[in-house]
Every structure is written in C-alpha cells, then in structure tokens.
C-alpha cells in the first residue's frame, strides 16, 4: 500500500528568487495525484522537494504510513522518474534494474519488473544509446519500479512521446497504481494527461497553489480565469447568463441575469436560434481537427470556440449555456 503525504507552507528559493511560496497540499495513500501548471510554475521543484533531492527553505513535508504514523524520508521507498530519464550511459538495461533491486530480491522480481514494463529479453544486454525513445522510457520506468516504491514521483515523462506510446505508458502507470496501491504524483503541463490518469489535482502557478481538488471539480469550477486557462480550453465571453440558460451580450446588468460571464468551457456552449441581443454572426470558419473553429461576432463582443456543428460564414446564431456555469465573473 502506498504512503500519504502532506505539505504545509512549503517554501523554496534560489538565491533571492522565490520558486515556491506557501504551498500546502495533501495526497492520500494510493492516490493518483496530478500537479499541473504552466512552465516555470515550480512543479518540478516541488517534485524534487518531495524526492528529497533539494532542501526546504521553509515549511514542512510529512509522510504517513498506512497507520497514519509519520515516517522519515530515509525509510520511505520513493522513486523518481526523471523528465530527462537520467539513464546511465555505461550501464545495460539489465544492470539498470539489477543495481536498484534490493539484494534480497531474486531473479523473479527482476524478470517481473522488466517484463511488466514491456521490455523483451533481447533488449536486456543493450546500452541506452542502442535503444529507441520508447524503450528508454520503459527502462526508466522499470528502474523506478524495481524497488517497489510506495511513492512514485513522475516528472513530465510524456513530453516528446507519440500517441501510441503515450497511451501505453499511461496504462502502465495506472496498472501499477491499481496493482500495488502505489501513491503516484504526476507532474505535467498537459491537462489531457491529468484527466486521463489522475483522481485529484493541484494547480500551481508562479509558485503558489491556486486550486486543489478532484479533477472534475477543478475543471468545471476553476477559481479564476488563470486557473481555468491552465486546466483546459476556455472560451472568452462577456455576457449575462439568464435564467433560461440563454446569454445576453447586450445588457449585462438585467435583473434576470444570474451571473455575468467572462469565460466558459467550450463544452458548455450550444447554438440556438438568435433572439434579440443574443445574435452572433459567423465571420470566420476554419477546420480544427475533426471540429470547426468559429469566430462569432455580436454587436458588442467577439468570441472564438470549437464545435462539431457545421456553420457557414454569415450565418447568425444564438448561444446558450448547456450546463451550470463554471467560471466566475
């Protein structure tokens, strides 16, 4: 079973530059926890602090076993999957795992680890420079799993990886979590990976935690526009949300308005018949994958969003919010 951990007011600086400020979060045992944020948010730094590679400048980090007892870092079985993979160039695939395996483990564990990560026996005598990108990823993962860690820290492993390999690695990680109950902390800047893997997420921006919670709650109820942008696609819109679910771009202060909107999720928008001020004319259309990207213009505003529905330039439509509003005004 994995360990749980808690960060309390963690701070880290390099020189006088603050990297992390007042970071507090909690991760349950066996949870697949994501840390997301734009570049420079401090995600990797936080991960390195959890791994014990860097020292705290302020605050504390607590680790708890399954009984809720505090345990020391030195006794934790923590593994880190580096963004650069950090494979040793003069060590074979087999030796990468052999070096890490506890001496008490036998051949069985060794075989288990390598085969579990999808590394065939033909690759075992090879050196890193003789492997492809996907094989390198697997070896790095095998090395991380060799010691049966209770806490696995994963630092953006799928940055330069194709879709097929991406889904394979993701499945592998999920299997590990389910099979061993390992707590996994997954750092990425891609929201799609968070939604695919994680149960809870923490949003970091400029060294601070701006939101933390279950993935869907954070997605549908971001605390501010910045958080919304970090956690997925956003449609910027300035309009009043009416009781009927329609929006009025004209008058944002009518009494029937529930909220004044600044942005919504694209999934929340739908096309309806134009009515009154809720009239948007299509002035640009271009394909975007299997959808269409539209630029709609009203008398007061212009918005851009994607939809699978086909419209032509010059068409006039109205817009309604399908689900409950998610962005604060």
């Amino acid at each position, binding site marked *: 079973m994995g360990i749980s951990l808690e960060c309390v007011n963690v701070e880290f600086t390099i020189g006088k530059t603050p990297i992390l400020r007042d970071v507090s979060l909690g991760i349950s045992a066996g949870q697949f926890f994501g840390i997301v944020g734009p570049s420079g948010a401090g995600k990797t730094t936080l991960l390195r*602090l*959890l*791994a*014990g*590679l*860097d*020292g*705290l400048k302020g605050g*504390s*980090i*607590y*680790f708890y076993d399954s009984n809720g007892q*505090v*345990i*020391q*870092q*030195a006794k934790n079985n*923590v*593994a*880190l999957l*580096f963004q*650069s993979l*950090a*494979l*040793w*160039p*003069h*060590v074979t695939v087999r*030796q990468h795992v052999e*070096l*890490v395996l506890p001496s008490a483990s036998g051949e069985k564990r060794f075989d288990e680890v390598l085969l579990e990560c999808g590394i065939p026996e033909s690759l075992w005598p090879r050196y890193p420079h003789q492997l492809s990108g996907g094989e390198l990823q697997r070896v790095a993962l095998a*090395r991380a799993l*060799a*010691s049966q860690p209770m806490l696995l820290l994963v630092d953006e492993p799928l940055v330069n990886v194709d879709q097929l390999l991406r889904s394979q690695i993701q499945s592998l990680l999920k299997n590990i979590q389910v099979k061993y109950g390992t707590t996994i902390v997954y750092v990425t800047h891609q929201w799609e990976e968070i939604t695919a893997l994680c149960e809870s997420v923490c949003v970091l921006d400029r060294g601070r935690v701006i939101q933390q919670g279950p993935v869907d709650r954070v997605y549908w109820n971001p605390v501010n526009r910045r958080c919304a942008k970090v956690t997925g696609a956003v449609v910027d819109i300035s309009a009043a949300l009416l009781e009927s679910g329609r929006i009025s771009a004209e008058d944002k202060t009518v009494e029937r308005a529930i909220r004044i909107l600044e942005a919504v999720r694209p999934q929340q928008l739908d096309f309806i018949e134009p009515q009154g001020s809720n009239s948007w004319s299509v002035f640009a259309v271009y394909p975007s994958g299997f959808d269409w990207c539209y630029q709609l213009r009203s008398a007061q505003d212009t918005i851009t969003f994607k939809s699978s529905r086909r419209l032509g330039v010059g068409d006039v439509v109205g817009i309604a919010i399908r689900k409950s509003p998610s962005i604060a005004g």
Partner: protein
Amino acid sequence: MNPQNVRSQSKMKLHPLIVVGVFFLFLPFAWASVDLLEIRIRPDLLEHRHLVTILTSSIVISCIGAFFAVVLGFFVSVAHSHYRLPFFAVWGTLMLVPLICPVTMWSMAQNACFGEGGLINQFIGESWNDLYTKFTPGKYILAVLIFAQITMPLCMLIILRGCRRLQAGGWIAAKHYLTRTKMCLWVIKGLKHEIITSFLLAFSLNLGNFAVPHALQCRLISVEIYSQAINYLDREGAIAASVIILAVAMLPAFLLALIFRRTQSLLQPSETLYSDQKNWRRGLMATICMGYLIIFLFFPVAALFVQCGSISTLLQAIRVSLPEASNSLIIASICAVLAGLLPWAAALVSPKKVGTAWEFFNLWAIGVSPLVIAIVCSRIGSLFGSRIGSITIANAILCYALLLRVWPYAFRILSTGKQEYHLDWHEAARMARIPRLRQVTKIDLPHYLPYVVLTMVIAFSLSIGEIEISQMLCAPGCGTLALRLMTFLHFAPANEVAGLALFQMAVAMTPVFVLFAFWKKTFNIL
C-alpha cells in the same frame, strides 16, 4: 506528531582553489630568492646589442609560424565543420601528431625531408638545394615551417570549438542564406576570438620553444636564455630575460579562459544536419588535408627511416638506449598517473559555474615555455642542496615540472568529462539508494575512464618527448631518451641519430595509436 523535514542535499564545501593551490604552491617559492634583493637583471645579457637582433628575429619567426599555424588550423576546422569531412577521426588524430611527437625528433624529420641533402633534395636534385639555401638563411624558414606544424593542432582544436559554437548559432542558416564570400566573412567574424587566441598561443609557444632552434642550430632567443641559465648558472638573469615570453604567454591563457567560460553550455549540433555527401568541394577539402598529412607527416618520417638506413642501425639504437628508455618510461608514467589524478580532482571540485579566474588558474601554463618552467623549477633543486640523495628530489622536481607543463591539457580534458557528467545520473542513483561505492564503480568511473586514460596517454607522450625540462632537471645518470638524442644530435653519425629519433617517436606515439585503435571514440576535448 513530530515534523520531519525532508533531508536536504549535502554539498561539498571544499574550495577548489585549495586543491590546486597546494600544487602551485612551489612556484612563487621557487621564483623568489632567499634574499629578494638578489633578483636582478644581468646587464651583460640584456645590454648586448646582438640580443636585440636575436630577439627581433625570434619575434618575426614566431609571428610568421603562428600565422601559418592559424591559417592551417582555420582551414581544417572550417572545412570539417562545413563539409563534415570523411574519416575525420582518423586523420584528425594524425593532425595532432606534431603536437604530441617529441619536438627534437620532429625537427630532425623535417630537416631530413626538406633540408639540404634531404629526401626532397634527392628527388628533385640540386635545384632544391639552390632554392633552399637562397631562402633559408640560418635555417629560419625551416624553423618557421616546424613552428607552424607543431602549433597548428592547438589552433585547430581551439577554432574547432568555435566552429561548434557557430554550428549551434546559425551556421546552417548562414549556409542557406549567404553567398560564399559573405559566408566566409560571417565565419571569420564569428571566430575572431578563437583566431586571435590561437594566434597568441602559437606565438608564445614558438617564442619560448628551445628544442627547434637547438636541433636546427639557429640562434633564437630561447637558446640565448637557455645558454644564460645553463652555462652561467644565472637563473635569475634567465628568468628576467624570459619575462617577455612569460608576458606574451599569459594573454592567450586568459583569452582561452574567457572562451571556455562563455561556452560552457555548448550545444551539440545534430550529426546529420551538416552532412553534404555529394558536394565535390568536400572531396577537394579532404584531398587537401590528406595532402598536407602526406607531405608534412609521412614524408618526413619516411625521410628519417631513409636516413637511418637499416633495421640493424635502428635495433642498435634501441639496444644501447634501453637504460634511458627505461628511465623515460618510468618518469613519463609517473607524470601520466599524476596528470590523470590531480587535474581530475581539481576538475571534480570545480564550481558548477566556472569563473574566468578559475579557468585561467588552470590554464596559465599552456603558453608558457617549458624552458621557463624548467628554469623556475631548477631553483627548487638548489634550495634542497646538492647532496647525492637529492637524486630522488631531482626526479620529484622533474615530475612536478612535467606535470605543470601538461596540467592545462589534462585539466581541460577532465573538465570536459565533468561537464558531460549529468547531475541527474547521480540523483537517479541516490533515489535508487545505490551504495556510494557501487555508484562510483558502476556509474562514475565508467564515464570518467575514457577521459582519464586520454589524459594519461597525452601526458605520457608529451613527457617522453620533452627536452627543455629534462635537460635542466634530470639528475646525473638519470637521463632520458630525449636527453640522449640531444647529446648525440650533433656529434654522432646521422644514421645512428635517426635511429634513436625513430625509437623515441615509437615510444612516444605508440600509446596514442593504441588508444585510438582500441577505442575509436571522438573526444570533444575542448
């Protein structure tokens, strides 16, 4: 519930200067006299009018030699960077031979090929002699040729580093957008620091070179300084007279330190990016480079073989010089081991962001003449007195002086090894709880081993062929092959001397070729 902070990473606080400072401690000690007032300039050396003539001619010859070295080095570096010449690892290594080869032997080889009565003379006939004697009063032109050859490899390495920087800085865009002339100007402008530095370095090495003018018997300032030190035992006067050599030598070291510091995070371009398989110019460049090697490397060595005359002469030379060969091997091996370990320690404790001062501190000796190092170190021997037991001390001082000479090369190679060691390897090992000793043997040492071995091989070869330091510091009866060659050079029959020179070359160069044949790894050592 007690708060448990995450263990912070421990850092080694050892100041790097302490390590290197201990090593360089002797130098000011050796320089200063017991009574500082004793340091004086010997007027009878510096007031001689003829010395001005000799100094002027030395400066001119050194300049011209440096110029040609830079031109050749520039050509080879840029040609390879632009066209990715084929089999560069092979003939790039051969290009380094004049730098690593014993200088006396190299001078003899060039003289045997291009000098009066040499191989070329035998092919071309008397017209070569007429041409030669017309244009080479006092063998100065031959000296220029040899200076250019022995300093060209350094220039090539420095400019190659600059080329790698340019390759990461838009070379391929320049190739795409610019005309050939503008491309040339772009390259020259981009490499101007490297060109200036390599010129100054070649110049200072030429000016302080003793072996070449001694072998060719042409009167240059280094011979005068040596004569002053040896024949008059006026080391202070000799040091004072070599101030100009020292002053010139410091500048390229400083510039090199600047270059290395500014290009610490050098990007490595893709190997396939600049491949230009079907370009006829590539073949032409490669042919020119091979032609240079054939004319100035293979022919002179062949000329030495011709001069030696027979295998029996060669074997005889080997037989009679076995004691010196053994001494040479021991001294060079000790120097090689020290050169592999001490600079490695200095490189390991180098700060993460290396400053110019630190680089300069480790590079200052690169342009300093071994003659000057020898004169300074010989004072250490004087301070220990002259008891017979000081033969051990003499050998220790000899090894110390040799180590000083090879230190810049050793440190550079091992620093590169350290730069290429990724910190996250160590962190991954830490995360994996691998015992420290196992980490050292399985991860650290395999990475550093090629660099340490390369350093030891280069230190070995440079020490075997070194003459200035050996001549001044070797104890009686502890002669080396280089010393034997020096004392026989002008007194023994030419074929015997040629045999000895070939033997010395074989001893010096065998480790280099064995290393290359065994490893075939290209080292980006600058």
